[in-house]
């Protein structure tokens, strides 16, 4: 048979036509529609986007980045991390340290030192605050700190071939250990109060409508950027090796791949994405405390991903919006039932919607065509 006659499947474009228009619409909404509705439309108009909603949407977009990061490691590589809250908090704390230093002498105690240090009767900055005055160093550390923690932890965990539920438990334990560490006043991270009462970022006041909008747009652009990046990763052979590791790891080894660097790379990328999300989150909500490292916070990230649909990329983003939208409504309407709702949601999705919302939509579409 003539082998030249065989048509090999050619790789599709990075974004399908639908995905491309989706990204373009989102780009338009984030960069033009939302700022216009918030800043230009008068507050009494029905079309006005309230500051509250801008804050809420900005926050949810940070969560969506986390869900996207979780999808890369859980949905595509089959490694369930229950410690992504740690990386989110680390990024947030690095940003928080910078914002604390930006307060300058405007704190309650009018000291050069952050208020909580004055309160603890410390006389000078601890060593790990050395770079917190520089914005450039802060940007670097937002990537480096979560990245390095993830790399070192991941190296030892993956090298020991820790898998499945054991890996999940260890990540959970690591996060809990970090929670306890950050709770201590001696750690120099503000103890259980964490950092708050931020005044400025890059010398500009942080609580203005314009600054909120700027942070909102940056978060939206980061989310879209990460989405396209994740799409590229998943469409490359690297992404297919990850899926192969998820489905049959020993077979991957017999194909001549060493799974360790693959897992370690995606694990570290995922952690860095979470760290960046945390750094964008802190100036928007105005507080970071060890609560972000709580068990529930990390599990929630997994819930968003599962609800939206694992291994779909767009699913986790949808999931983060759906669950957090529901959360902001339910915690006001029925505050005591939120956690029950979350638990039931997770069980229901696992049992009846293994592909999540996106899977459900796909199913309906197929059913409609048939």
């Amino acid at each position, binding site marked *: *048979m003539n*082998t*030249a006659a*065989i*048509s*090999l*499947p050619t*790789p599709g474009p990075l974004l399908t036509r639908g995905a491309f228009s989706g990204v373009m619409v989102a780009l338009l909404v984030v960069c033009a529609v939302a700022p216009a509705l918030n800043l230009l439309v008068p507050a009494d108009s029905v079309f006005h986007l309230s500051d509250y909603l801008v804050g809420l949407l900005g926050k949810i977009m940070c969560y969506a980045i986390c869900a996207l990061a979780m999808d890369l490691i859980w949905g595509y590589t089959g490694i369930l991390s229950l410690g992504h809250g740690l990386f989110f908090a680390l990024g947030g704390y690095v940003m928080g340290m910078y914002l604390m230093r930006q307060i300058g002498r405007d704190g309650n105690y009018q000291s050069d030192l952050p208020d909580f240090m004055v309160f603890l009767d410390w006389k000078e900055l601890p060593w790990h605050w050395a770079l917190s005055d520089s914005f450039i160093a802060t940007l670097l550390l937002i990537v480096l700190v979560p990245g390095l923690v993830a790399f070192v932890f991941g190296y030892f965990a993956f090298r020991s071939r820790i898998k499945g539920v054991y890996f999940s438990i260890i990540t959970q334990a690591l996060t809990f250990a970090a929670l306890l560490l950050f709770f201590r006043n001696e750690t120099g991270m503000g103890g259980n109060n964490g950092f708050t009462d931020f005044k400025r970022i890059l010398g500009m006041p942080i609580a203005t409508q314009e600054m909120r909008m700027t942070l909102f747009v940056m978060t939206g652009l980061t989310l879209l950027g990460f989405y396209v990046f994740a799409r590229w*990763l998943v469409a*490359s*052979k*690297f992404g*297919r*090796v990850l*899926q*192969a590791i998820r*489905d*049959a790891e*020993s*077979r*991957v*080894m*017999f*194909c*001549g*791949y*060493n799974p360790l*660097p*693959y897992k370690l*790379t995606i694990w570290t990328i995922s952690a860095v994405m979470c760290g960046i999300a945390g750094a964008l989150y802190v100036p928007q909500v105005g507080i970071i405390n060890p609560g972000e490292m709580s068990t529930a916070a990390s599990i929630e990230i997994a819930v968003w991903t599962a609800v939206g649909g694992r291994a779909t990329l767009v699913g986790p983003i949808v999931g983060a919006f759906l669950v957090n939208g529901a959360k902001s409504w339910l915690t006001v309407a029925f505050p005591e039932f939120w956690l029950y709702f979350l638990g039931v949601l997770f069980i229901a999705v696992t049992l009846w919607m293994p592909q999540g919302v996106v899977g459900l939509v796909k199913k309906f579409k197929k059913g409609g065509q048939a």
Partner: protein
Amino acid sequence: MTPDLMEAGAQRFEKLQTIALPGQTESGGRSAGYGRFAKAGEVDTTHGRILYLEDVHVSFDGFKAINGLNLDIAPGELRCIIGPNGAGKTTMMDIITGKTRPDSGTVFFGSTIDLLRYREPEIAALGIGRKFQKPTVFEQLSVFENLELALATDKRVGRSMVFSPTGEEKDRLAEVLTTIHLADSASRQAGLLSHGQKQWLEIGMLLMQDPKLLLLDEPVAGMTDEETARTAELFLSLKGKHSLMVVEHDMSFIRAISEKVTVLCDGSVLAEGSLDEVQADERVIEVYLGR
């Protein structure tokens, strides 16, 4: 030294000369007096052997799975391995591919590579491909993507991120797709293939790595007669280009492909020869029909 001892020695030498391998000179193809460099990572088959196991022992919790196994395979040979359940066939493949460490013994790939010093991915990279009993293909990926993953190329993370097959590699992919009769299903999801097609796809994935030695564990289990016949055809076409070691229970399949059959029992070789020879061997009959 007495004359009769010298005579016996001469006879033994004569005998050794006659059983020397066909096509091999006594110096293993080298010109006398010249040494050779053993090239690292390259299989040296000048001694006429691609795989060589000697006196291998493995026990699991006191159970001797492999007990003094001696076995060797020539380049381009298609060797069938048969034996009752628990004879150690799968354990032997585990040892060759680095999955199981033997307690003692020697396992050489060619004359120079001591396989016991390598780990699984390294052994795969050296040129030993293995097909498992249960077909394991990457079910979520397409047939084409499965083969592309198996392609012999730089398998580091950075290269994988920017990988795109070259013209030569595309030809190779097309060639293997044809060989395994899956050219029409290239974009199909592997999980949707029939059992026999999955087996072929897995064999195709082994071929993509261009292995020197192929280990196949029950390749026709669960196949229809027609699929079995096509598989036999496929194996015969691979013989010569690759060395194959096939573990199988299906005697008609073995009859169709084999030239030399090795019978394993209780972790060591019971008999070796053509299928008719081993089937006539009384010990083999005893093992198979029960004591």
